[in-house]
Structure formats: C-alpha cells, structure tokens
C-alpha cells in the first residue's frame, strides 16, 4: 500500500495569508463589520444634526437631545415606555417562571404535552395579538364586552385593552416564553442532589425551595426579566395598535412618526432611537457581565432527572393555570381573528348568515381585480425576504461562528462583540440607523434595504444556533480531516457543514419565522410596493376595516403555525433552548 507523495513546495509566508480560510473569513468579517457598525455610527452622528424650520438644511447641535425633555409629547412617551416595559417584565416573569416550574418540577398532568403550546406565542406576531385582543376587549366592539352586555344586560364594558394596561397584558402574554426558555434550562438541568442534600440536613421543602432552588435559578430569572424589559421597550406593534390611537405615545410609536409621515424628522427620530439604544445597551451589558456569569446550574452537561414535587390535589390548579395561559395567549386570539375575518365588516356581532371567505379572497388572490395590493404584495415580498434573508443570514452565521469558535484569532473577538450588538438593539433602532445610512443610495425603497435590515438585526440568532452545536462537537473532528489531507474548504464541505446540518436548518426556520412576522424594521424601511405581511396588516388596520385586517393576520398566523410544526419536527425540543 505504498503510495509516495511528491515533495510539496513549501508555502512562503506572504502566501500563507492567502489561504481559503483567511480569504473567506476576512471578506465575511468585513461584510459583518460594515453592516453592523455603519448604521450605528450614522445613527449616532445623525442624532446631533438639527433640522431647520423649513426642513431642508441641518446644522450640528444638541437641540434634538434638549427636545427629549422639553417636547410636548416625547417625555411622556419615554415615561409610558418605562411603564410598559416594567409592567410587561413583571407579568411575563410571573407567568414564565410559574409555567416553567409547573412543567419542569411538579407532577402537573400532561405537562410534556402542554409545553409546546406554551411556547407558541414566541413565534407569533405580538402586533397580530394586539389586533386580536382589540377585537376581543375594546370597550365598544370587543367580543367579550359584547357578550358581557348580552348575558348580563349590563351597560358599559367589562374589559378595556385600549390603554397601557392592555399593552402590558398583550406584550406580557407574548413575551412569557422568553422568560420560560431562560428559566426552564436551569430548572431541568439542576442537579437534584443539591436539593436532596439540603433536605438531609433537615431543611423542609419550603426552606429548601427558598434557600437552594430559588437562588440557583435567580440568575436565569433575572436574565429573562431584563431581556423582556428591553424587548418590550423596543416593541412597536402592540403600543401602536392599543395605546397610540388613544393618546398614549411610546418611544417606538414616536420614532415611527418621525421616520415616516407628514412631520418626518429622521434626525429627531435618530435621537429618540439613541435613548432606546442606550437603555438597551446598558441593560444587556448588565445582564451579560453581572448576571449571566452567575448562572450556576448550566455548567454541568450531565443529564439529570430533577426532583418532581407532588402537588396533590393542587396539581389540577397548576394544570388549569397552564391551560388558561394557552387559552388567552393562543386559542382565544386566533379564534377571534378567525370569527372577525369571516364578516364583511365587524360590527361586534357574530352573524352566521353574513359569513364568507371574501376577505381571504381579497387579501390572497393577487391576480384578481379587487385584491388589495398592500396585502398581496406584502405576502409575496415577505416570502421572498424570508427565504433569501434566512439563507444569506445562515451562510453568514456559519462563517462567523467558524471564525469565532474555530479560527480564534484577533478578529474572532471583535466579531463576537459585533454579533452581540444587533441582538441587543431593538429592530426599530437598527432600522432608523439603516434608514439614515442608505436613504441617499439606490437601495432605498427597494427590497434590498429591508433584506439588509433583516439580516443585520437577526443573523446573530442563526449564529447562536450554529455556535451552540459547534461548541458541542469537538474541534478534533475538523482537525482530523485536515490531517487526512483535506483542505479547509473540503473539510467545511464534507465534515463541518454535515455535522452542523440540524443547527443550520433549525436556525434557518427560526429566521424564516422571524422574517415572516417582522414589523418594526419593515415599518421604517418599506415604501409603496415593498410592503411585507405585517406592513400589510398595518395598512389594512389603518385604511381598511377590522375584518380584512383579521383575514390577513389569520393568514400570517396559519403560515407561522405551519413553520412551528416543521421546526419542531426537524429540530426537536433541544434547538429552542439553545
């Protein structure tokens, strides 16, 4: 079996830097750096530009920042944002921790079957949730209020979601899975002997829970709570639907009015984005530096069977609590959307004889004369964006993960930070950055600018999906391929990518879902002809009626549900918790 290998020409140093590995990684690194840093720099710079009264010229100054507390609306908007974020944080943390504890640590019946449904809101659009809840519980036309009046012959209303409390309610329901996902890992992976040894020292159940279990999970709870605070501060759809029309402005709704519309002032919009951005950066920094490292329970990779608490009769209360969450967060809104969408016009009354699929025809059948362009274009554009965006983002994510976790040079540390920045930034802030950066270029008002915004903001999600698997598979698998004589690229193609395939696909579907429902970037960057589904919903809500809005919302929801199903089938339970 002798096979002589011809002596190989030694590679000189300067050529050493022109290997496949360095060429690809340098190019991708530069793309990522430009995509992430450029909008942020432009945003910061723009925030110091002041538009003159005529709205043509700008000069340097701090007037935008002074407006933050002298303006008629902005200070209140900042205050409202704070109220909403705090309220949402409390509600989502309470629900998320309770559900995680019930599912992981008690004998609640059928907990395994309930879990996937607990997570559904994570994938759906909060904006659509707000529309559904508006139809359920606005004072005049809310279905629940109508029923209340009919059954009890009462006057007025039972529930009102058209205010800050409504925003907190809906956002809280939708962000509960965020906390859940943070906490469930700690609860499941906790070494049961930690609690058992407390019990053997004589500590009772309550005392063990308070002195051992809770402190061990606290870092995860705090992390989840901070992420919810930050995410709801950047949430646009829900306050736009439930609060802004009734006089409760928030930072995001104000940024929106400054980005588009009659009194557009991108520079003031940029300044307000800075406020949101700075709050976010500080909180995310606190989470990563002070809280995440204190997470004790995720260190061991061992699979434990956590202690399960026998709730006795109370297990049915836990079960009921869990079902109620699924009912108000998933079942009721979707049911309401469906009912409303069947009516020609929603008059707060279910009229079976009026029901038809006409609204779906108008929003789906793009070839028909009476179709609504904003809706039909939106669907097509969203699919184009979701498909190409997820594909490009995953390629980027793959190379970037490789650089961070395999190449390990100077550039990898920089890239690691670059990948954290977009995750922290609210979509609407990043979109403002992208808008002010590219408004003078040909890509403005095309799908390209949306694609750029989507990928920049969300590719780190895909990157994390890949990175978690990449960290789990030994580097020696790559190295042994190189030792077998394969080049870097062949190794990537034949070893690395096949091993990462589940992660790549799970990440792809996750991004596809996110892009299909994306609102806060799209709403800033779209223009006529480049609407997305969510922009279409916005358009219908503003310029058409509730019934048409519900039809398109329903379409989006069904597509998302199908994606979730595929995601679960392919990726399994594990992919989510990564």
């Amino acid at each position, binding site marked *: 079996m002798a096979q002589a290998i011809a002596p190989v020409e*030694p*590679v000189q140093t300067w050529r050493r830097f022109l290997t496949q590995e360095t060429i690809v990684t340098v190019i991708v690194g530069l793309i990522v750096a430009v995509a992430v840093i450029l909008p942020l720099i432009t945003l910061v710079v723009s925030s110091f530009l002041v538009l003159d009264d005529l709205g043509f010229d700008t000069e340097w100054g701090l007037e935008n920042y002074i407006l933050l507390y002298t303006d008629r609306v902005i200070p209140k908007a900042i205050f409202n944002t704070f109220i909403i974020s705090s309220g949402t944080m409390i509600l989502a943390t309470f629900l998320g921790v309770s559900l995680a504890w019930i599912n992981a640590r008690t004998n609640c019946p059928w907990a395994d079957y309930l879990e996937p449904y607990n997570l559904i809101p994570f994938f759906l659009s909060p904006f659509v949730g707000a529309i559904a809840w508006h139809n359920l519980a606005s004072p005049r036309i809310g279905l629940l209020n109508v029923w209340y009046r009919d059954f009890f012959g009462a006057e007025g209303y039972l529930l009102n979601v058209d205010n800050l409390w409504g925003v907190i309610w809906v956002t809280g329901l939708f962000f509960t899975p965020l906390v859940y996902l943070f906490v469930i890992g700690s609860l499941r992976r906790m070494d049961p002997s930690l609690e058992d040894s407390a019990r053997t020292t004589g500590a009772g159940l309550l005392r063990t829970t308070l002195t051992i279990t809770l402190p061990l999970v606290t870092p995860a709870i705090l992390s989840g709570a901070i992420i919810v605070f930050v995410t709801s501060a950047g949430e646009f759809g829900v306050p736009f639907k439930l609060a802004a029309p009734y006089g409760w402005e928030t930072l995001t709704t104000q940024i929106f009015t400054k980005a588009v519309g009659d009194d557009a002032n991108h520079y003031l919009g940029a300044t307000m984005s800075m406020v949101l951005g700075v709050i976010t950066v500080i909180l995310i920094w606190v989470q990563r530096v002070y809280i995440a490292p204190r997470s004790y329970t995720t260190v061991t990779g061992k699979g434990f069977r956590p202690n399960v608490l026998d709730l006795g009769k109370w297990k049915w209360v836990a079960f009921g609590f869990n079902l109620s969450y699924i009912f108000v967060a998933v079942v009721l809104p979707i049911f309401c959307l469906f009912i409303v969408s069947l009516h020609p016009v929603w008059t707060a009354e279910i009229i079976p004889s009026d029901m038809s699929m006409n609204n779906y025809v108008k929003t789906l059948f793009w070839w028909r004369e009476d179709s609504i362009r904003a809706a039909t274009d939106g669907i097509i554009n969203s699919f184009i964006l979701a498909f190409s965006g997820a594909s490009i983002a995953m390629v980027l994510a793959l190379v970037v993960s490789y650089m961070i976790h395999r190449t390990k040079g100077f550039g990898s540390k920089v890239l690691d930070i670059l990948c954290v920045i977009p995750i922290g930034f609210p979509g609407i802030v990043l979109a403002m950055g992208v808008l002010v950066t590219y408004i003078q270029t040909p890509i403005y008002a095309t799908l390209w600018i949306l694609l750029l915004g989507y990928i920049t903001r969300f590719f780190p999600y895909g990157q994390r999906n890949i990175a978690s698997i990449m960290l789990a598979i*030994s580097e*020696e698998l790559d*190295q042994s391929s190189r030792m*077998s*004589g394969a080049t870097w690229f062949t190794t990537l193609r034949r*070893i690395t990518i096949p091993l990462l395939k589940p992660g790549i696909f799970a990440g792809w579907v996750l991004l596809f879902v996110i892009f299909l429902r994306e609102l806060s970037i799209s709403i800033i960057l779209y223009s006529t002809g480049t609407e997305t589904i969510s922009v279409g919903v916005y358009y219908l809500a503003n310029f058409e009626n509730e019934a048409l809005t519900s039809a398109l919302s329903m379409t989006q929801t069904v597509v998302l549900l199908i994606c979730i199903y595929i995601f679960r089938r392919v990726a399994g339970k594990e992919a989510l918790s990564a």
Partner: protein
Amino acid sequence: MNTEDKNYLVVDQLVKWFGSDRAVNGISFSIEKGSFLTLLGPSGCGKTTTLMSIAGLHAIDAGEIRVGDTIYTSREKKIFLPPEKRDIGMVFQSYAIWPHMTVKQNVAYPLEIRKLHADEIDERVNKVLELVGLSEMAEKLATQLSGGQQQRTALARAIVSNPRLLLFDEPLSNLDLKLREQMRVELKRIQNEVGITSIYVTHDQSEALVMSDEIIVMSKGRIEQRDPPLAVYSKPVNEYVSQFIGVANLLKGKVLSEAESGKGKVDISTSITGLSCDCLLSSEMKKGDEVVVSVRPENVSVSRDNTDSSGIEGKVNAAIFMGNCVDCRITSGSYEWKVLTHPRENLNEGDRVFLHLDPEHTLAVTP
C-alpha cells in the same frame, strides 16, 4: 542505515509561546525511520504542543521541523506547510470519528481526498479494517461503536493512506483500564506491522514503557531525558525523571568520595542521621556535589535480623497487601521508605526490620 533514515523526523530548536508562557522552550530531537517514540510528561509539559506543531495544527514561534527532505515548518525560512499537505496520520484523544459517516466512510476519507480509484480505495480500506479487526463493523455508524472500536477506526483512518508519520495524542486515555492494557499491545503490533514512524504523546508512564522504542521525558517545555524504556526506568538522569517514571525513594545527599569510575559514596545524613551509602554516580559528579539518591522500592531488600550489621534499622508503619506484593512504608529516622516486598515475607505493621541497598541499583541523580 543511512543518516537520512536515522534522522527521519527532525525537530530543531522548537519554540512555541502561549500568551506569555513558553509552552515549548527550544527543544530538539530526531527520530529514526520506522521507530516508535513517546513524548512523556505531566499536563502542561509541552508534549501535546510539540505534537500539534509537527501536525501543523498551529504555527510555531521559532525553530524548524522537517521530515526527510521536506521542511514542514521553519520560522527562520518563513515556511509553513498546511496540515493537509504534510501527509501525516493522526489519532486524536477523542478519536474524532465523524458521526455522520460509517466506519468504512471514515476510513476511506483520506483516500478519497487523495483521489484514488474507487476499487483501490475499497481494497485498501478492507485490508486496513482487517488489520485492526473491524471488518465486521464496516457499515456501522460511528455512534454505534464502543470506545475501543472507535479507537480502532481512528487508527485505521490514520494509517490507511500509509502516511510518512503517525501521531498519537493520548489515544488511550478515554478507555477503561482493561481495554487500555489490551490496546497498548494491539497498537504496538499494528505499528510494527505497517512500520510507520510514530510519535506518541501520553502522561501515562506505563503506556510509554510498554509501547515505545524510545521515550522522551519532558517537563516545563524542555526535554529531561531521552532513552529506551529500560534506561529511562533504571537510569533516570535526575530527580524529576526518577519520581515521574515509577516510584522512587529519594534522599538528599552530598558526594563524599568517588571510588572507581561511575561509583562512589554519598552522605545522606540529612535524611537519615549518620548514614552514607554506596551508589552509581554519573561521570560529571564530583566530590562535594549536591545529589539525590534514588532507589526503586523493589530494589530495597528487607531482613528481620542484621547479621552483617550493614542494614538500616526501621519500623514497619504500614503494610498494604496488593495481591502480588506487599507495599510497605518503613520509617528509619525521619525518612519513610517505600518498599515492595514479597507476600511470603509476611511483614506486619509495627515489625522491626533492616533495609539493605544494592549499590548496583542505588543511583545518585542530579536534583
């Protein structure tokens, strides 16, 4: 044998920094073609770093590595051959069997990379699978294999292309004791059969002793000793090697006198009052030099009476029955001896005994 075969692999003044640590501190060695060399040392001694430098899995900071007439890497000549061009087979600590491929696909991979004809690939893969005893398992996925089978697959993959060098990075450390002992012999047999020059990295001294033609003992990025296994064990050059390889009684002392060449008397009164002993000295040791006397536990003999009054009096502190021997701790003065005795001697805790040192097996080494 010509000089080229004698110096088949040459590592010359290799230096590798990790941050501000010198992981490898200017080591040089060469290997004869077809031989089996072990780099032995505790973790952090630079053995794995040396191996990775030869493999090309990281760049080096100074020095040169060459095989035959091919320079693999040279800092001075600004040469770096990427790992895939070095024609090396390597067995990793984790085996690194690709889980998405069958055993056969794993083993065929290096040949596919070399663009061999499918028939030839098939033939060579079958041959090598037979050699490692995995013919039955060819179609199994890597995930269905036991640790030992993964190990064999990794070995088959490393040797299938008949590379110029075979590198082992602690390949047995993940196996349980029984299997490890079995694989030692197996690995050596296969290496003998294919005759590929091999470098083996381990921290397990018994592995090194069993398998190697030669052993290089390393510590803190430097070579302490290079010798065949027997010499490393019986003639350690310094205190470090004698306590790292096997177990040794080490007593601080001072050379009293040099007798005939290579022999002399050493004063060990700092350990045991008023005592000196005859031992083997190395050529550069002079009267008055600080040395350490090293005696293997199996080279201390024990008697109950002191007929020739040359024995060192001691008291048995502990006698631990190990099956084929009894591991005794015997104190004399302030020193506690480790002594291996035959079970027939029937030593018990508290017994008074006399220890005798054989000058031929009592070694003065540098501290």
